[in-house]
């Protein structure tokens, strides 16, 4: 479970988050969208413990990120905007490091499986700095999925993927959601979000201005109203 409860955050008097609240339950694949500067990255930084909220509570897997940071992070798989993969490790070493740190059982097999699933087997022994942007993204996502955490957060992590890579990742995320993970994704490509997510949260000026359920998304598709239209209406 990923939860933010009445979170406020300001930088030098500029209110970025104004009582932001949402809850993502196991099995949900939720997209967080909003204009540039709406507070998406700040919200993710707070829920992952990289920034402190001025007020309110953020928790992962039921653990408060401030008071139980270690337990909360054990529940988390996170892919930041800039991938954050060690440039001087090979792809296989990155996954091995994550497996060792998170004490993943039967890690060799799982690493093998993920490398194969994300089409990285051939590049497994190359330094990640030699990877293309899409390969780095796939590796970062594989590293987040490796320990099978109950909460997964992707900060604009689907950018830079080619159609095949994007399809691989979408499939993997749906599988993980079906297995009971709570997944939060931010992004600007509304088409991708619409196809992938079971629920969309629209963040505008620091609060959720629209919470679009799966039923509403389906209804929109049937009536020919695109997510883009909803977005433009809500952020006008």
């Amino acid at each position, binding site marked *: 479970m990923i939860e933010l409860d009445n979170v406020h955050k300001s*930088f*030098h008097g*500029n209110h*970025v988050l104004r009582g932001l609240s949402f809850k993502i339950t196991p099995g949900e694949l939720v997209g967080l969208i909003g204009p540039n500067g709406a507070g998406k990255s*700040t919200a993710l*930084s707070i829920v*992952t*413990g*990289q*920034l*402190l909220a001025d007020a309110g509570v953020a928790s992962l897997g039921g653990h408060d990120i*401030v008071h139980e*940071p*270690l*337990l909360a*992070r*054990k529940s*988390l798989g*996170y892919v*930041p905007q800039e991938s*954050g*993969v*060690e440039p*001087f*490790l*090979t792809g296989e*070493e990155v996954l091995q*490091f*994550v497996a*060792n*740190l*998170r004490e993943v059982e039967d890690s060799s097999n799982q690493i093998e499986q993920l490398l194969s699933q994300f089409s990285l087997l051939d590049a497994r022994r190359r*330094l990640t*700095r030699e990877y293309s942007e899409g390969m780095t993204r796939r590796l970062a996502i594989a590293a987040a999925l490796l320990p099978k955490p109950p909460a997964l957060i992707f900060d604009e992590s689907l950018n830079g993927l080619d159609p095949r890579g994007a399809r691989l990742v979408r499939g993997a995320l749906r599988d993980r959601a079906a297995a009971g993970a709570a997944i939060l994704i931010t992004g600007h490509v509304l088409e991708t979000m619409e196809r992938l997510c079971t629920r969309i949260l629209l963040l505008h000026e620091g609060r959720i201005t629209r919470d679009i359920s799966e039923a509403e998304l389906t209804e929109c598709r049937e009536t020919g109203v695109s997510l883009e239209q909803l977005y433009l209406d809500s952020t006008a």
Partner: protein
Amino acid sequence: MLGPLLWLSQATRRNRWRDLGPRARSGVVFGVVAAAIGLGLAGDSWLLASLVDGRDERVRSWTFWCMLTTALIFGYSSFEVLYRDPLWRRLATLPVSPRALFVAKVLRVYRRHIPLVLLPAISGSSLLMQSEYIAWCTAVVATGLVLLIGLAVSIFAHIWAGESLVDGANPLKAYLSQGYGPTEAAFLFYSPALALLATATVALGIEVGFIALYLNGTWLPLFGVVFGGVGLAVFCLRRASTIFVRWQHVIAPKFADVEVLPPWQEGAQSSRVFGQWLVAFLPGALAGVWTRLNTQYRRRYRVLLPMTGVLMVALAVFSGRSTTSIVDVWALAVAVGVLVFIPSFRACGPELGIGSTARALPIAARQNHVVLGMLALLEWTPLSIAVVIGGLAGGRLLEMGFAALMVLVAGAIVNGIAIPACVLLAPRVVRVSFAIRGVALCAVGVITSVL
């Protein structure tokens, strides 16, 4: 949990070295060896200069300056390793226990700074050749002790300053580590200064211990200082560990708050930066290239101007002393310039994008050469001015004026080599910086030794 962190560090180091390739590796090794030869020769000439008269005092003074120089370096760089190393950012969202993280950070700080012990070891190599083994060992051990104790004190100072960012921190502590300035200033100014002050005190204690040993033949004060210092180091590390384990999860995001400023937090930028007045003397296209480079450079490396001020004061004091020779002044000024003021290494690196945008924009390599040269001139001129001021104060204006001129000549030669090399190789300039700095320091050593 510490195991994977240490493995990560070791594997990254190994792969980084392998990735350099044989030619680049040779360049780095060549640069380091050349710098070592230069340092050895410079140290040799300085120490041998008074082997006949006041030798013991000279050796002791050299030992003290070695200790102080290392303290000056690691007071700030230990802060950089503790808080700004990119590794910690990558680990920020992983479930790493604070205790393991603390040990990993401490080990990283020590590993990065242990090579500083080579400063007395190499610069004092002439003592070895003169069979002055005890003097050489004394300097190496003393600097090692300062590193051992001083790094622990520094780590404590930085983490203690970090704790002052926690809400509800003790106001006295907040004041001591932050002063009355804004919270953001705490990390940048006060904790490195605290670390330096404490380490310099330890170095002074060791120096006093040596003086007591030389003059009275008594070991007691030296033992007292050493054991007291080691006890202080243990206390500092234990206390730092306690603070870190308790507050790391708050300090790290607070620091991120301070460091990762969203655009609106920086506020409107002033278009007036140091050196912008030169635009008036430049033709249109070159003026644009200069504004683009200089503005970025000054905003990114804000610390350079105050650092120049501090180094100018130190150089002026050094050159103002009647006992300082013209060669020593020249060597020190050029060594400082080579280590700190070769702007092309910074400007052509990946951060400012001089190399990449030069390829995408209609900017000729010659224009880049000119603006980088102007930047170098702005950085080396204050060094010369400081030498002249020192000469004026010490009544040796003519001598020091000549030294100042020679400083500019050396700067022109070093930058004349560095600028085209950096423009050509941008943004991969790290290796060439090793080679050029090494060779330049070697040349300084050779010239000092010959003169």
